């Protein structure tokens, strides 16, 4: 029995040790910027509920929300629902029982999230949505989204310009259950369909993922060796496609378009491997959401004229990529 216990203890130590070796550089991403003095105001806790901080995009969202809240004098808790509406519900329940002052939420699905937002609002906690919207209005205090359709249009125009209005191309589609995947794809199609000589020969999903983007691209290159372009629903899939094209020695003939504006994509644009990417103003939108929460807590008004607010995306090309740093474009 004793030996059993020691082995188990050793196993546990190993696990914890592994975790510790990783956490050295992770800082305080989990929770509670303890009682930041900040600039006086507010006080209390704001719950930040996001999707998946392992993606640099959402990580920027969380970091921004936490930093801005701290600046305005709030503590924060951070949870991630991974687009799972049940988990989102649990986090909302948790936030209600903790009696937080406000909730900053990146919702898990437009329809699925209505109930969760309503529950919090009924409990007297104002909810501010960032990045994605819900199906109903009048429940959340504000819904701040980036204008994906406009962004896709921008990207597609730049891509057409560089491809040259003629040839076969393929599309990498995001996770099919994610609303943004469809919106972006529609935006691309809307622009590109105006050029009848640009022909979409295949559309594959790679679930936002780099490795899958590469594998799918490798096979699609077999079926369509003469493509001149790739449009991708996000940067990660685009980066996978770029690697596949590099391996096949075809990057010169194929123009790749990304979406999100993450750091790796910025580097690829800089190196001339990616034609363009579209920066979602996630930092701007999240900052705005926290500021509106603060304003609402102080005098009952968000200060914005409408609940739904769409922030335009920005096109990132070789011309302005140098001013992009971690989702923020400095002027």
């Amino acid at each position, binding site marked *: 029995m004793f030996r*059993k216990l020691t*082995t*188990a203890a*050793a*196993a546990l130590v*190993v*696990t914890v040790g*592994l*975790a510790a*070796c*990783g*956490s*050295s*550089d*992770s*800082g305080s*991403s989990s929770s509670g910027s303890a009682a930041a003095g900040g600039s006086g105001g507010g006080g209390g806790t704001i719950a930040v509920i996001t999707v998946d*901080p*392992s*993606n*640099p995009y959402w*990580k920027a969202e969380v970091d921004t929300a936490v930093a801005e809240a701290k600046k305005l004098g709030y503590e924060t808790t951070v949870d991630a629902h991974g687009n799972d509406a049940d988990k989102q519900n649990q986090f909302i329940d948790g936030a209600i029982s903790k009696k937080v002052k406000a909730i900053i939420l990146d919702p898990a699905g437009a329809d699925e999230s209505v109930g969760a937002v309503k529950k919090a609002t009924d409990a007297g906690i104002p909810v501010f949505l960032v990045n994605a919207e819900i199906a109903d209005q009048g429940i959340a205090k504000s819904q701040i989204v980036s204008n994906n359709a406009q962004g896709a249009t921008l990207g597609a125009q730049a891509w057409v310009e560089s491809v040259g209005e003629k040839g076969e191309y393929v599309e990498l*589609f995001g996770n*099919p259950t994610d609303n943004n995947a469809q919106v972006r794809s529609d935006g691309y199609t809307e622009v590109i369909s105006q050029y009848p000589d640009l022909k979409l020969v*295949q*559309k*594959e*999903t790679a679930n936002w*993922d*780099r*490795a899958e983007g*590469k*594998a*799918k691209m*490798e*096979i*699609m290159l*077999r*079926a369509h060796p003469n493509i001149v372009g790739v449009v991708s629903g996000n940067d*990660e899939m685009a*980066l*996978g496609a770029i*690697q596949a094209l590099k391996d096949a020695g075809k990057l010169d003939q194929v123009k790749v378009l990304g979406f999100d504006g993450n*750091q*790796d994509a910025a*580097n690829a644009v800089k190196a001339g491997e990616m034609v363009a990417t579209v920066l979602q103003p996630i930092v701007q939108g999240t900052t705005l959401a926290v500021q509106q929460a603060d304003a609402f807590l102080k005098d009952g008004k968000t200060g914005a004229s409408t609940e739904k607010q769409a922030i335009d995306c920005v096109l990132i090309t070789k011309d302005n990529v140098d001013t992009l740093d971690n989702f923020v474009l400095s002027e």
Partner: protein
Amino acid sequence: MSDTLAPPRETRPAATPPPAGRFRKPNWNALLVEGRALIALAIIVVIFASLSPNFLDPSNLILMTRHVAMNAILAIGMLMVILNGGIDLSVGSTVGVTGVIAGYLLQGWDMPLTQLVAYPPVWVVIAASVLIGALVGWVNGVLVSKLNVAPFIATLGMLYVARGIALLITNGETFTKLQGEEGLGNTGFITALASAPLGIPMPVWFMVAFAVVFSLLLNRTAFGRWLYATGGNERAAELSGVPVKRVQTIVYVLSGLCAATVGLLLTADLPAATPRAGEFYELNAIAAVVIGGAALSGGRGTIRGTLIGAFVIGFLVDGLVLVGVSVFWQQVIKGAVIILAVAVDQLQQSLQKRRALRRVAAATNRPGAPRPA
């Protein structure tokens, strides 16, 4: 239960050719079992070859085999665990964490308690990742064998723990500077693992090597016999002196080693170490093992079958993309093939069992034979 105690048919050395110069009557029954996955593979190849002229192109076959190799290596490790009657759900996360460790070390390791940044040479990076993979497996093994945690639960927990560690190490970011620097002496990671000696990609070489080594392990060593025995009937194996607990721990370590290898190969292939790498890979590995004729209850399964299973899944997935089947149908078809393959397997086994029973009945009913009371 007791019928699995006898060494099952599949434990015969998988790759032994019939003795030269002597004609042996083929064992049709065994051929059919082995051949079932092979028939599925043949059907897939014929269908896709007729639909796409590119399918049988040698360079396309090499490409698809490279995709297959990653899953096949994972599946070989998974087979060890499944032969033991367990399951390893943590392999996908282990792929992620080992790849990230490699990426982290190649970018430069901020040594704790010092201001120094270490740039370990590539062989150290590889060794460290493999060691971590083995360690993850060992923890799984200890949980299962010493603490009697159900394999499904232990490895499900490890799925989250390992993924979480990968996220902690990267802080959610992706490591892309893997080529190393000449001055630091840590170049060569990508060439070592993502080149293609003799035109065959590295992952394929690894798949072949793993298949050979694990085949020998299963068929030529005491460990192999123990493994089949513990999977067939653990209590009986224990009574006949098999170190059941040790075998149980080792299979998870082996699975961890396989996952670490895939983690390294995938990282070099991208080339990027992302904390999300390997998500859901465990499911494809399990599917390959099962299509290859292994029983989830343990004690039955071969390396050869598992490899064929991996080819069935890989060729199917790539073939569907190659001929341009719509995304949603791809998933439906993949699922249907897995179910069909296993359903046929079950049917065949119940037929065989019935035939065996009938033979026993016929023998005992012989005139003059002692009748059962």
